């Protein structure tokens, strides 16, 4: 379980997250929506320790992410993350991209790591592209590569930060399908997304962020059909 308690995050004087309280249970799919600058990405970064926090706490399966003694590199193996920009390692083939972290972080043998990588690439539908360099892959394929790369560490949670926002419209579908597949397999997921269809169909709950505050959280039917907050209704009216 991911537990967030009274989380405050500042960038200098800018108060970006203003006291977030949120629990995400094992197996849950949570979508996070909200306007640009509302702090959605920052929330994900605070969950896997890519950003420091100023107050409150984030715990993952009981481990305090921001405590001094926490082995953050070990903890991050539990928390796969996929970014808006896919960030493929350009000097490595698809297979090597995926095999890198299992090999150097988990200390797997070269053969083991390649086997894991091949399996995960198959999983996201890139079984034919093992020896191809990222420059020869489309944006959608590179994003699926990024998903396979995260999955190769056998994470228990996946954090998606607008995984489809940088893609050409015709490539969005294949990535959303892969995310759906993971959700169906029971992966615990937090998805920051602008894809309202995905949020509505796939998530168990939807959280709406507004200016650093989690204004509202609830089942998709309630958020999309009967939002309590004025801001949520306004936001949803604008994106549709």
């Amino acid at each position, binding site marked *: 379980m991911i537990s967030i308690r009274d989380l405050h995050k500042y960038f200098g004087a800018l108060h970006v997250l203003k006291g977030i309280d949120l629990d995400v249970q094992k197996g849950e799919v949570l979508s996070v929506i909200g306007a640009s600058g509302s702090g959605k990405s920052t929330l994900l*970064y605070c969950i*896997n320790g*890519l950003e420091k926090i100023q107050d409150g706490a984030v715990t993952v399966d009981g481990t305090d992410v921001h405590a001094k003694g926490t082995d953050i*590199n*070990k903890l*991050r*193996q539990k*928390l*796969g*993350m996929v*970014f808006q*920009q896919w*960030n493929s*390692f*350009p*000097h490595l083939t698809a297979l090597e991209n995926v095999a*890198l*972290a299992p090999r*150097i*972080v*988990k200390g797997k043998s070269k053969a083991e790591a390649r086997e894991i990588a091949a399996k995960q690439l198959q999983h996201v539908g890139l079984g034919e592209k093992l020896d191809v*360099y990222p*420059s020869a892959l489309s944006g959608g394929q590179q994003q699926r590569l*990024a998903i396979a*790369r*995260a999955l190769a*560490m056998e994470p228990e949670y996946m954090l998606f930060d607008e995984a489809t926002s940088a893609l050409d419209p015709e490539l969005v579908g294949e990535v959303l399908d892969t995310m759906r597949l993971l959700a169906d397999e029971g992966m615990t997921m937090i998805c920051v997304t602008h894809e309202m269809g995905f949020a509505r169909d796939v998530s168990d709950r939807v959280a709406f962020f507004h200016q650093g505050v989690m204004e509202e959280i609830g089942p998709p039917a309630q958020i999309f059909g009967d939002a309590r907050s004025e801001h949520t209704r306004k936001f949803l009216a604008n994106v549709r």
Partner: protein
Amino acid sequence: MEPTLKFFSGFAPNDLWFMGEAALRTLWISVLSISLGTVLGTLFGWMLYEGRRAATLTLAPVLDVFRSVPLIIQLVLFYNFAPIVGLNLDPFASGTVILTVYTAALVANVARGGIEAVGAPMRRAARSLGLSYWQDLRHVVLPIGGRAVFPSWVGVALGVMKDSALVSVLGYVELLKASQILITRTQEPFLILALAGAFYFALSYPVSRYATHLENRWAQ
């Protein structure tokens, strides 16, 4: 007839051998300085990138000095003043020290550019996989940034190889010094300078060809 005779008798096949040996000395001092300077410069570049106050306040101005003062002045000053602080270095060692520091000062900027070229998003992605700071540097920043600035580094390396000619002022008999000696004896400056030029070309051309080959391989 007499001057022609002198011309042919002046430059003997043996002298070519003499120049070849000198070219090897040029190669040796260059390879040594460029290697050491690259390691040191990469370290400096990393320090500059990390931008701790101490590095920006102390290291950056020092590197600026080594980059901007003409190499020949650095060499002469260092060779003559090092003994005062108890360092008795021969011309080769003095030349190596200065060429190394000079290379490091140039490589520092190249290396910092390389780290910057990798960009924060790529590094966050690497760290999110569980790579430690050092694993990220070694397995992501070094290969990606290294390739990005490889052409600039080759430029620095070839430049330093040519600049190593300046170590001749200390009396180290590398290619240029050897040429000067032969010119004095044979009075045939054009022939000998052309030969020296050919030697320098023979040293740099394979390097730049190999560099182009690598860049092409990485480009695909």
